């Protein structure tokens, strides 16, 4: 037997691997993180994707342009309307279709409602990830109101597929305006209660403040977008940089926080809900009445060329890049999903954090796994 002599300099704790996911209560989907741990400390994070890969980009090459829209629902299912809108806008831009004003306004209102619904769901699971289980139920109560509004008009609650190239699928339900008007003051009254329950809690503040710092430089170089980048003070709101649909007609602020920590990202989303309500308020009273569909051909064929449309989903900068060779199917479609780039930042800022902090950080990143893994 070989004798092993230890001296104190050799003594070190042993690093070990933990598979967090693909089935794990804190991963909001089938994200697998291979963690190198030293005790409670996370030394390295390696995401392993592919558990929900459905080759959506490849499928798009075999579908007509009208069908592609339905596939985009399944990317970031919480921002499904904005994804639909991005593809519709890209096709309209390529075909040079001028859509009616009513369609633009409807799309913007729907988009902002979807954003609020997404942020509400995020707030609920954010609380669950840091151990406060009650937030989930409160968030879902209020999100349900949006789902009901969506259901009445679009016929679906989550994957709406409401936009079509050149318009929207159905006209607004007669109840729509009233229900949205009911919802706006309701949400304004409940968000302060959310703050009482979670934001103001001393434990929550301690968990969030100065944890998971992401510098503005890193946010830019890692390609972060949406609330993650805005929490680090990087202005990146596509709604302001290149307003689409009816966004050029409304007045709203881009929420920017300079701290770059968990709390900043949290606050950005909480404040964004107010801004979204503000946008809806400006549009809801005077929806123009000039039809819901521009004239399009039955079979849409894009001219030869490359087309890019970027929109701001609830998670950040969503891009649709279509290469067309003039046929009825696209030659290549590429989706730039915000979650994928935001996952990069998790790998950077999650290192040398405690396991509990890693969960909190990934909660503030607001991942939707089908969006990361298309």
């Amino acid at each position, binding site marked *: 037997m070989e004798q092993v002599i230890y001296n104190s300099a050799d003594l070190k704790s042993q690093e070990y691997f*933990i598979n967090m996911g693909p089935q794990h209560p804190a991963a909001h989907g089938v994200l697998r993180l291979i963690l190198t741990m030293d005790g*409670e400390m996370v030394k390295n994070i390696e995401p392993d994707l592919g558990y929900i890969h459905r080759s959506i980009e490849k499928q798009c090459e075999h579908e007509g342009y009208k069908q592609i829209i339905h596939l985009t629902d399944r990317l970031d299912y919480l921002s499904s309307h904005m994804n639909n809108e991005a593809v519709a806008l890209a096709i309209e831009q390529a075909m040079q279709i001028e859509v009616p004003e009513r369609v633009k306004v409807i799309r913007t209102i729907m988009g902002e409602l979807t954003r609020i619904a997404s942020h509400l769901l995020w707030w609920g699971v954010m609380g669950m990830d840091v*151990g406060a*289980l009650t937030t989930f*139920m409160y968030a879902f109560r209020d999100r349900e109101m949006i789902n009901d509004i969506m259901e009445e008009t679009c016929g679906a609650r989550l994957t709406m597929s409401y936009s079509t190239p050149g318009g929207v699928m159905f006209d607004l339900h007669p109840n729509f305006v009233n229900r949205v008007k009911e919802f706006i003051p309701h949400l304004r009254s409940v968000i302060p209660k959310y703050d009482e329950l979670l934001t103001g809690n001393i*434990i*929550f503040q301690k*968990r969030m403040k100065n944890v998971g710092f992401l510098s503005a430089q890193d946010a830019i170089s890692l390609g972060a977008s949406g609330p993650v980048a805005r929490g680090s003070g990087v202005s990146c709101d596509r709604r302001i940089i290149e307003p689409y649909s009816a966004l050029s007609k409304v007045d709203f602020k881009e929420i920017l926080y300079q701290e770059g920590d968990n709390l900043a990202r949290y606050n950005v989303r909480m404040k964004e809900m107010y801004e979204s309500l503000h946008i809806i308020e400006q549009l809801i009273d005077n929806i123009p009445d000039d039809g819901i569909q521009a004239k399009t051909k039955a079979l849409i064929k894009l001219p030869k060329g490359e087309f890019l449309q970027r929109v701001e989903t609830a998670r950040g900068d969503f891009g649709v890049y279509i290469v067309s060779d003039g046929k009825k199917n696209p030659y290549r479609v590429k989706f730039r999903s915000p979650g994928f780039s935001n996952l990069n930042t998790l790998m950077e800022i999650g290192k040398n954090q405690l*396991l*509990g902090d890693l969960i909190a950080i990934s909660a503030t990143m607001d991942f939707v796994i089908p969006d990361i893994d298309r």
Partner: protein
Amino acid sequence: MILTNTTNYFSQFIAYFSDTIGWGMGGQILAYVLIAIVYLIFFALAGLYLVYLERRVAAFFQLRLGPNRVGPWGLMQTIADALKLLSKEIFGTDRKDKLLYHTAYYLVIVAALISLSVIPFSNGIAAYDINIGVFFISAVSSVGILGLLIGGWGSNNKYGVLGGMRSGLQMISYELSSGLAILTIVLMAGSLQLSEIIHQQQAGWFLWRGHIPALIAFVIFVIAGTAESNRTPFDLPEGEAELGAGYHTEYSGMGFAWFFLAEFINMFIISAVGVTLFLGGWLAPFGITDGLGMPWLWGFIWFFIKVGLMIFLLMWFRWTFPRLRIDQLLTLEWKYLLPIGLVNIILMAVLVYYHLVF
């Protein structure tokens, strides 16, 4: 009406039973066994109904209804759940350490049940009313920690090990604080016997009589007690968002059920000890039911009302607060609660020495 601490219904029962049956030592042992069986049945049911209560309270906090289908108001729900768990296969990994894996849950549940034996539920109703009751509870409940530790270790699962280590870290740390809080009251009472401590509170609950030190001790005790029973905001050992299920990740069927039941019985014990030490145990507030006859029944009622309120407080914590991080957990204990507890006990000693307590 001053109640004396002489009757103990259990010792009377044992004497009566063994005399009647006349087997000498055997009769006594049979009486002990009977009492133990009654305790087991009562607390298995109490644990199940605490689970039911927890689910109803959680539903109440969360805009839900909670269990309401099985039996009237869903009262049979947890019984049905227990039956389901009984019928389930105990399924674990192949590489578990079988001895430790299977010892763990017995340690936890047995430690919880033994602690119950010294708690006086009413005047003269404590199965084992010894003169070092407080000490006995702290000692026995520490054995439960061992169960969590070896359960996490023996299941050969990294989440289990992390959960087990966290529970060891947490419960050993917080036991110091709860011990100090208990000692503060023991200083006042001058006794370690739980029934004696209650009898002394006939002049007023120790929470009021002990001025500020007792109040501080109570707050520390509630915080440390929450931590010892592994409940939110101190549910790190089984923090589901972080560790799956922590130390009981690999347990299923009754193995899991024992851990689960033990958690709720521990919550009951924490509340019962808190009520006994600070809130007068089974004594009626201001003696309002003293003249109504059947003192042991009123004792029961008041004891369970107080314990219920205390349990509700713990449940309120659980469904409101987020979870602490592991370093914050230890900071809270070693940098705040422990020094405060130490200063507090000195303060109490000074008060007691100069007879400044009521």
